[in-house]
Each structure stands twice: as C-alpha cells, then as structure tokens.
C-alpha cells in the first residue's frame, strides 16, 4: 500500500488501472483535465492507449470503439462535456457496451464557474441520452479515496450489466488533494473491498436476449459475430430492425437487467446515527455529505435527534431508504433542488421533505446546524442566500 497526498483525479486514474482499464479518450476540461493528463502518461506505462478526441462526443465514441475491440475503456469530463456525450451514451446503452464515464460536477448552467463545485447533473445522469426506455447506473463518491474505489466498482458493474456507468463526482472530489492509499497487489485490493470482473467476448448469437440476464459478455467485433452494433434497435441476433415487438423486448432488457439486479449495488450507501429513528434525516451525496456528517455529529452532541443518509449509488434511485414517516432534508450543491424531488417521490406520503442548497461552495457546519434546529422546531427557514421550498 502506498500513501500519497494526491487529487481525486489521480485516485480515479489509479483505480481505473487497477480495474483493468487500458483505453482512455478524453477532451480537457476543468476540473477533469488532470485526469486526462494523468491518463496520458499512465496509459502507455501499462501498455494502454490514450487518445485526445476532437471533442467530448468524439471521446466517448472512441471509447465505444475501444470497448467493441475488447478494451475496458473510460472517459472523463465535466458538465459542459457530459452533455456532448448524449449521442454516444445512447449508443452504448442500446448496444450494451460497457464503458466508464466520470463527470466532475462544477457550477452550471453551461460553462458556469469552472473551479468550483456544483451538483447540477443529478437528473442528467439518469437521462444522459434521448429516447428513454433504459435504466442507468450512477455512483457518487465523496472523497478521493472513495473515488478510486467507485472507479473500480464502476468497471465491475459496467462489465456485469453490460452498460455504461457514470461516476458523478464534484469538483472538490476530483480537484481536491487528500491523503490516499493505493493498493499495490490483488491481496491489498481485496482487503480494500475492490472487486473486478474480467472482460469476456460474446460468441453469440443470441447477442441481445429478451431477458433480464446479466453477466453476458459484450460483443467484441471480429469474434464470430454478425452483430452490427449500430444505433438502431437490434434483433436478438444483432441485426437492425424497426419492429415494435423487437423494440419492446430490447427495452425490457435495458430496463430490467438493472432494476432486477439491484442487490449487486444497493449496499452502496452510508448511514450515520440512523439506528434510533431520528426526527430529521439529512440526505446528501458527494462532498456536501462530509459537511453534513460533521454537522450531524455536532447536532447529536447538542441532543438533537438527527441522522444522516448518504447515497453512493444514485440511480436506480434507492427508494427503500425513505419509507419512514419522518422529516427529510436534502442538502445539495445547487439552488434549484434536484435530489429533493426524488426524495419527495420516494418518501412516505406523510413525510415532510425539505431542501437547502448552495452552489460553488460547501454549506458551513454552523449554517446546517441552524437549519436542523429550525426544522426540528417546525419553524420556517428564512436565511439570506438559502432557499427553502416546501415540496
């Protein structure tokens, strides 16, 4: 085990290499540029390939090409680049091509603020492409160390589910420095809970069975395949079709291969002070969850019955955590309230659901404590710079 003071971008690079990634295509964008930079010298060191695309759309297309050639492939960007993935992302979902994508959230909309954190792509990662008829897997680490772990996990899930997996980080996770430990061999990887899945080759047909089966190896072109891997609806044998029934079968597969196997990732959450049915449950993901944890620990010292629920896998949304009739508070790095909408949808019908947001900077512990106190007393929040909505 080696210990470093390094960025999340470095941690993700090392995680990807540990997971077997040997192809990276990207386009520089703050705050993911250092990831592309690290990959540009690390990939050749491990007999991998690094390509800078002419833009983000090209970068993900390159990854799809590499994956169809048998590589474990990855790309990384921030919000303004993630939106350019829309076209190839749909292709990867439709043709069931495993690829890992990192989105380092900064302040939006559009170019917004580059070197500051935001969480504006919660729903975008659920619907990263047009057309619907699919489910997505999204993981959200809250530290550099966990970003490494979730990168390894993303490759694992991408292979088993045969689908693109997004790691939704934020600028503070990727750009911030932290002391991290990098495992140096398989025993150390296992000790850290890292799991990997080898790349197989599908010898089909059938390439796209109308079932929710997982662990089917992906298509690798040139290996006894007639699969076209085009952007049209495929038949089970991999030919293009425009038949509604064939499309229905394929859509069923894209949705339920993920929904019916949530047990593979639904342990990815963290609960703090949640054993005694707290009066207020603070829900968050990514870096804000670390401030929430500090605030909740302080609240407990003051005798407030507050608990914290941190989501690590965001999609499919873990509805099962919100069945209690209590007060929920969603803390997010945006002003419009995104996670809170999903909490409201999933929560018990008589639960109270509240939201506090900030963007570009983390909320302060003291500010959160004040919010907790007010909500527990049933008082409305009226703070300059803070928005409170009844959802």
């Amino acid at each position, binding site marked *: 085990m080696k*210990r*470093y*003071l390094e960025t999340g971008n470095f941690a993700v690079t090392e995680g990807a290499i540990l997971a077997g990634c040997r192809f990276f295509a990207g386009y520089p964008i*703050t705050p993911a540029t250092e990831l592309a930079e690290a990959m540009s010298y690390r990939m050749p060191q491990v007999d991998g390939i690094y390509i800078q695309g002419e833009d983000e759309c090209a970068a993900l297309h390159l990854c799809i090409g590499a994956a169809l050639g048998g590589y474990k492939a990855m790309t990384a960007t921030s919000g303004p680049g993630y939106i350019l993935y829309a076209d190839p992302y749909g292709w990867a979902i439709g043709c069931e091509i495993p690829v890992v994508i990192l989105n380092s959230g900064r302040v939006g909309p559009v170019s917004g603020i*580059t*070197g*500051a954190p935001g969480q504006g792509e919660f729903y975008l990662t659920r619907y990263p492409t047009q057309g619907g008829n699919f489910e997505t897997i999204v993981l959200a680490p809250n*530290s550099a160390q966990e970003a490494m772990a979730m990168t390894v996990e993303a490759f694992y899930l991408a292979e088993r589910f045969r689908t693109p997996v997004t790691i939704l980080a934020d*600028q*503070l996770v990727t*750009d*911030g*420095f*932290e*002391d991290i430990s990098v495992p140096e061999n398989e025993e150390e990887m296992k000790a850290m809970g890292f799991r990997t899945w080898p790349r197989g080759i599908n010898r089909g047909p059938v390439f796209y069975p109308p079932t929710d089966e997982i662990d089917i190896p992906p298509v690798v072109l040139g290996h006894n395949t007639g699969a076209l891997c085009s952007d049209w609806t495929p038949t089970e044998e991999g030919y293009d079709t425009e038949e509604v029934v064939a499309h229905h079968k394929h859509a069923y597969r894209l949705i339920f291969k993920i929904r019916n196997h949530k047990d593979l990732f639904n342990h990815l959450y963290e609960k703090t002070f949640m054993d005694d049915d707290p009066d207020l449950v603070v829900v968050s993901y990514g*870096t804000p969850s*670390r*401030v929430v*944890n*500090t*605030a909740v*620990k302080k609240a407990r010292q003051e005798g407030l019955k507050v608990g914290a629920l941190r989501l690590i896998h965001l999609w499919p949304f873990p509805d099962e955590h919100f069945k209690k009739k209590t007060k929920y508070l969603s803390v997010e790095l945006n002003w419009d309230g995104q996670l809170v909408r999903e909490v409201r949808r999933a929560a018990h019908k008589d639960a109270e659901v509240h939201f506090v947001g900030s963007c*570009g*900077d*983390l909320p*302060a*512990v*003291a500010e959160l404590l004040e919010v907790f106190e007010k909500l527990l007393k049933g008082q409305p929040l009226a703070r300059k710079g803070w928005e409170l909505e009844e959802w």
Partner: protein
Amino acid sequence: MKTRSEILASGFGGQGVVRLGQVLGEAAVKQGYRVTMLKSHGTEMRGGYVRSQVVISKEPIDSPMVEFPDLFVALSLAAYRAFKHLVKEGRILYDPAFVVEIDQGLGCIQTPVPAKNVSVENFGRPVFANTIMLGVIADVMKTLDPEIILQSILQIIPKYHEENKKAFEIGYALLGNNR
C-alpha cells in the same frame, strides 16, 4: 496539536496558493496525519482568484471545509477582505505588497510578511516569495516539523533547490522575535 488544524490560503493565480497548501499537506502526510486540501480557482492560469483550504487531523476528516482557520495566508486584498472575519483565535499572515489596507478591529494576530519584496531583494525576482512564506509558516506553526516542510518543498518544486532552501531559511528567520 489539537485534533484538527485548519489553514486557509488565498490570493491570485500564479502566486503559488495551491502549491503552498500542497506543501503543507504533503508535510502532514509525511508526519502521519490525515489531510484534505480543497482548491477553488478561476479559469485563468494567472491573475484569477485562488483559494486553498487545508485540514490536518489525527482522525479521519469529515468536513473538508475551513470554517475556523488557525492560520490564514492572505496574498491579495480581495482575499483578505473576503476571509478575514473567519479568523477568530488564529493568525493572519499577509503580504503588505498586496494587502495594502488592514482592518485594525480584528481580534486575531495579524503579521505582515513582506515575502515578495524580500524575494526581490535576495533573488532579484518575486518567484521565491511563496517559499519565503512557507518558511514563516514553519516558524509560526507548531504542528509541522520545519525540516519535513522543507523536504516537501524540495519534493514538490522540482527546480531551483538551492534558491528554495535559501528562501525557506530566510523566511524561517524573518520574523525573529516579532513572532
């Protein structure tokens, strides 16, 4: 040390605000501490705003936010004005070449460190101001071993080792009894 030490540095792009945080973080890791360092910055390589927030702790760190800095290194007037109110019991080190207006009403210790001018006097250019400031930090901050800070500077800054060593020593002796 207390369980958690917080250091805030802020100024313009190009002054080495991120490097400064990185050096202190690296030194802390070498001494076995847990470390987080957030950086926020504008788009520009030089001239934009930059802020480093370093947290050093014996325990795993939840919030990486600096809310009560033990040390605030102010390298621009805008940064000084934006964050001076955060410093309650800690200390502000500021370079008077940039921070030209001091709020005398603050309760904390405020120490001028003319790092830019000292660098120009000794090396003919301002580029070693950051290392001089790190020398001063090593002098006033008791958490980290000055030898390990110097070692971290030489590891992180690949060039001008002799000058950086000298600059660090100048900084370390700069305040003398005026600490």
